[in-house]
């Protein structure tokens, strides 16, 4: 059974009080819960949030499933998101993504055996002038090559 930590619960309560419509707190609360559950959301979490927020599960679920930044499956400690949209594709973003997968010995959206990495191809991250790029958890890494990207990742323990 998932339960928010005390600080997580306080964060959700403060989001509930922050907006004129309490449903506005769903997205911020999903962020809080996802962080506490190592980067992904389970049906258990939805049930818990529903109780805490007094919002029907179905309402929370539809929001959860609509937005791509909420993960429906476990991800590695480092979620490597490589932009493969047009500006990055023009500068080798797709080749970089497949190089990273090859080097880490993993398919897209899987977790490496040691639990460290998940590699995903994602749509434009607004880093088009510094392509190719990847986002690792919350941090942008820009102007990469397949090699410099791998060097950065090897340093993430």
């Amino acid at each position, binding site marked *: 059974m998932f339960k928010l930590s005390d600080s997580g619960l306080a964060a959700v309560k403060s989001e509930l009080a*922050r*907006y*004129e*419509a*309490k*449903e*506005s*707190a*769903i*997205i*911020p609360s*999903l*962020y809080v819960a996802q962080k506490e559950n190592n980067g992904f959301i389970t049906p258990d979490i939805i049930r818990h949030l529903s109780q805490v927020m007094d919002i029907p599960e179905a*309402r929370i679920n*539809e*929001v959860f499933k*609509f*937005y*791509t*930044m*909420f993960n429906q499956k476990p991800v590695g400690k480092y979620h490597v998101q490589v932009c*493969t*949209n*047009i*500006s990055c*594709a*023009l*500068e080798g973003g*797709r*080749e970089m993504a*497949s190089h990273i997968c*090859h080097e880490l010995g993993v398919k897209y959206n899987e977790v490496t055996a040691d639990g460290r990495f998940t590699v995903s191809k994602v*749509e*434009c*991250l*607004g*880093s*088009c*002038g*510094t*392509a190719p790029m990847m*986002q690792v958890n*919350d*941090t*942008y890494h820009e102007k990469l090559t397949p090699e410099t990207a791998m060097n950065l990742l090897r340093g993430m323990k």
Partner: protein
Amino acid sequence: MSEVKLLTEFYHLPEYQTLAGYKAKGGYETLHKAFKMQPQQIIDEVKASGLRGRGGAGFPTGMKWGFLPKNGEPRYLLCNADEGEPGTFKDRMMMERAPHQLIEGMIISAFAIGSHKGYIYVRGEYVFPIECLNKAIKEAYAAGLLGKNILGSGFDFDLDVYRGAGAYICGEETGMISSLEGLKGQPKLKPPFPAVQGYLRKPTIVNNVETLAAVTYIIKDGAQTYRKHGTEKSAGTKLFSLSGNVMTPGNYEVPLGYSLMDLIMKEGGGMKPGRKLKAVIPGGSSAPVLTAEEVAKANLDYESLAGLGTMLGSGAVIVIDDSQCMVDMLGVLTHFYAHESCGQCTPCREGTGWLDKILHSILEGRGRLQDIDLLIKVADNMKGKTICALSDAAALPVLSFVTKFRDEFEFYVREGRSKVKGTTYAEMHH
């Protein structure tokens, strides 16, 4: 170099991110000036400036504000910072380098339209820009620039940041409102327009980051000074996000009407050694592509690009050189729109999916010659039939790529490999 830095003059200074650094360069002086004006005077000045929405649609800002009901009904000012149009990265820079410029623009705009509550809706991936904004908002509250009775003017304005969670459609203003209301980011039918019925069914003005930042400049130096730059119908300067196969990609602020070729060759440092210009998407991925011959005739203003059958959009100029396969590049775009369709309207939900399936069957060597016309037929049936513009945005690149580079598509179907690269899709991308 022909940059005209009305908004970005001090962006190279790290201290410009802070309240002290922003004030040292005249920051918040315009707010004092604005408080001495009547709200209607500010609206009139913005109208006279010819400022048009910088997020993509290019709608006149002052006119948008004019749609608000003329009563005391509570209203919201919502800043669209959900920058998601592929190729666009200007708002991110503005929030990182000059968060106070946006805040000042929002306070002035809120004062003009009589709003006491504003939100900046930022795309969820922009964690660092959000940090920059939150820091600046905190500074502004501490200095009495936000909250009750700002600078003793009697005007109250609260400002908060809302973090999105990864959905291109939330950049559409009614999709953004849905998202802020805690719903799926699905656009709403217009009318009613947000200015009449927006967030929580209250009148709401949604303006882009760059638009709101420009308001400060317009009030500071006046509409006529702003109009000295740009063209008659496309007034002022605009930030262009230059990306793709050029030597020095980046954000460049130039007067509207500036030559597209100059932006690529001068600001962008030209093509890479040995490469030739093949095509340009001038206004974000939704804008129809231009051939190199068309680029030579194009100026960066709303009218010139409309005259060439494309659009200025968000100002994202994506440069494609002669080493690129247009079938492959269109596959990137069809995948994007199929992924981002919100699923609400049938022509878009089904159309984007079919475009992507047909395109990828061509890319994977299973295409038939009649599929090329089928792409055109499907795209034609997606235009003007849905609640929002995403469907059109998905159809337009398909129509322009297929029509203007038809030989590449026909070659790919016949040979099962790229005319430019000589290889199959699997060979191109492992």
